[in-house]
């Protein structure tokens, strides 16, 4: 063929070839770089997705002092396992201890008075007995006898009064002891110290927004999942659900349904910012789970997938039967 003897034709073929090569190279769509960890994927056909947070089963205890005061000593650190009544921190008790000293001191004089009164009573009793044993009316006047008797009775009443004062002084001392006791903040129940926000020397105020310490039970954890109110009608109680913690999207933790909180609440953003952003309301569902092989911690965010029935249009039965049971109260 005559056309193939022309350089220009070969140039043209080369041009088309080069253009095609460049085009194929340029239009070859680069595939997305693989995610550094698996994105959370649902294991079910039809799901309701929710964002959740891991928390202790017993709601965390925000430790607060009974009175405001200077903190002198902190007995525990974060992560300590504590039993009930374990002292957590100590408030300044010097004032009460001083009071205790004066109250304590007030007891001893009273005791001395009581002792003194005892001898006084003994003396009068002896005197009265001696007077009574004398039958000679001339030797002992009726008047003397009566006076002595009255004196004895008076002394006895004085003794009673002193005893009461003594008891009162002791009670006053005990009051200070109890108040002193109160300055040592103790664990209301066993658990793990999750947070310690106080240090010795700080002043503990009443009703501060931040708890002084956070006590929780992390042995048994649960997940609190927030479902957008729009999706709330799709949630079936008892439906199977899984959760995956962020950055471990491929590891699924099976969940056991506990309850649905019956009140739809404004969503508190779980995005790490500590200011609360109210922009939508969410249905809160509580799930329990067994600890997986990898460590999980209270407060971690999780992605939750709850299975739902296929929409009616597909008409298929769900792969795993969900037996609708009564909602636990």
């Amino acid at each position, binding site marked *: 063929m005559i*056309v193939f003897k022309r350089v220009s034709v070969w140039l043209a073929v080369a*041009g088309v070839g080069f253009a095609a090569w460049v085009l194929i190279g340029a239009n070859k769509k*680069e595939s997305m770089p693989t995610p550094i960890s698996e994105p959370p994927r649902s294991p079910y056909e039809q799901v309701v997705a929710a964002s959740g947070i891991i928390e202790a089963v017993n709601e965390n205890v925000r430790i607060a002092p009974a009175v405001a005061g200077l903190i002198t000593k902190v007995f525990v650190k974060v992560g300590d396992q504590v039993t009930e009544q374990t002292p957590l921190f100590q408030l300044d008790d010097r004032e009460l201890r001083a009071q205790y000293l004066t109250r304590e001191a007030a007891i001893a004089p009273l005791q001395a008075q009581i002792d003194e009164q005892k001898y006084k009573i003994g003396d009068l009793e002896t005197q009265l007995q001696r007077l009574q044993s004398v039958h000679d009316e001339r030797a002992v006047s009726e008047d003397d006898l009566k006076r002595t008797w009255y004196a004895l009775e008076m002394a006895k009443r004085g003794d009673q009064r002193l005893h009461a004062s003594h008891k009162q002084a002791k009670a006053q001392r005990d009051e200070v002891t109890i108040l002193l006791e109160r300055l040592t903040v103790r664990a209301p129940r066993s658990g793990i110290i999750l947070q310690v926000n106080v240090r010795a020397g700080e002043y503990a105020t009443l009703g501060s927004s931040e708890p002084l310490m956070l006590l929780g039970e992390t042995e048994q954890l649960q997940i609190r999942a927030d*479902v957008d109110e729009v999706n709330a009608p799709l949630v079936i109680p008892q439906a199977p659900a899984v959760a995956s913690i962020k950055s471990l999207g491929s590891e699924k933790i099976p969940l056991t349904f506990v309850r649905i909180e019956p009140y739809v609440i404004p969503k508190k953003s779980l995005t790490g*910012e500590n200011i609360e952003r109210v922009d939508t309301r969410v249905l809160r569902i509580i799930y329990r789970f067994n600890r997986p092989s990898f460590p999980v911690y209270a407060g971690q965010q999780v992605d939750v997938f709850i299975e739902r029935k296929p929409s009616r249009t597909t008409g298929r039965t769900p792969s795993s039967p969900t037996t609708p049971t009564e909602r636990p109260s």
Partner: protein
Amino acid sequence: MNYVALKMLFGDRAKYLMLLCGLTFAVMLIVQQGSIFWGLMMWSQASITNLNVPIWVTDPGIAQVDEVKPLADTAVDRVRSLDGVEWAVPLYKGLLRARLATGEYHQITLTGLESATLIGRPAEVQEGRFEDILQPDAVVLDQWAVERMGGPTVVRVGTIFELNDKLARVVAIAKTQKSFTNIPVVYTTYEGAMRYVPRERRILSYVLAKHKDGVPVEDVVQRIRTQTGLGAFTQEDFGFKTYMWVLVNTGIGINFGTTILLGFIVGMAIAGQTFYLFTIENLRQFGALKAMGASSFTLARMILLQAFTVGLTGYGVGIGLATVFGFLTAQGGNLPFAETWQLLLLVLVALLAICLVSASVSIIKLARLEPAIVFR
């Protein structure tokens, strides 16, 4: 007679070269202009293609990618709840001001990627490791940010600057497609973005999602739209929406459109005229052939063969040269140049049409030709 036609075409080397040069130049002009225009359009949707995810979910009223209308945080979960969605992750995108140690200010686009997966990150980095973005205060710049902020001497891995009065440390330089506005892009994590941006009621700019394999992406997009009321687009649709916006709302459409149209007209005029001249000059030879008994049909076939041969040759050389031009100049990514097969096909069709038209004019002239011309 095809042989004779081709011999006639190739035989006169000077005339053939002139013809070829005209056509080549015309094709090159059109392809080059068109490609630059298309390259610009590609730049306008760079912030979409750079993220390279199949589905974008956002407010239904959105006009283009850089006009962000934030969504409620739960939108991610709502998208995840739909059938056919394989995954969905949040994305922050917004304008912020960066202040360099030198005191210079730069407007930047902050892109907050979901931290666990970093979906949407660029495929290539020039320097550093993209995963280091998970470190505290870490950000990743794109190469254009480095260029805009003063070059590698001012900004490099390890440079510390301020983002909205908060500390940011560069841990990597990513390689991305230049964008139309050329606003530097700063990547951070979604959580990091929340730290940098001023307090707003809503943060979530986009939900990026992927359809399950085997489910058509259009179905999933449609489902997201109808079931959540959010706006959902495929990557291509969103890109199209964005560059249509650029075309309509900026001067580029008009300016470039006229330039391309002019290039097209000029190119086609050159091509048509050159070829017409070629046949006119050969009229005497065609007359001789006609006198020797060649029918008008045969002559028409010969002219068409010549037209298409030279047309295709010019086309091939032209797109080859245009591609070489684009390949050399656009390699650094600094010049918009995006050749597409659609453009090449369009030019091919137009060129063949022009060849056909000029050949037809010649054929008509030939049909009217008195073979007696050969006796003069």
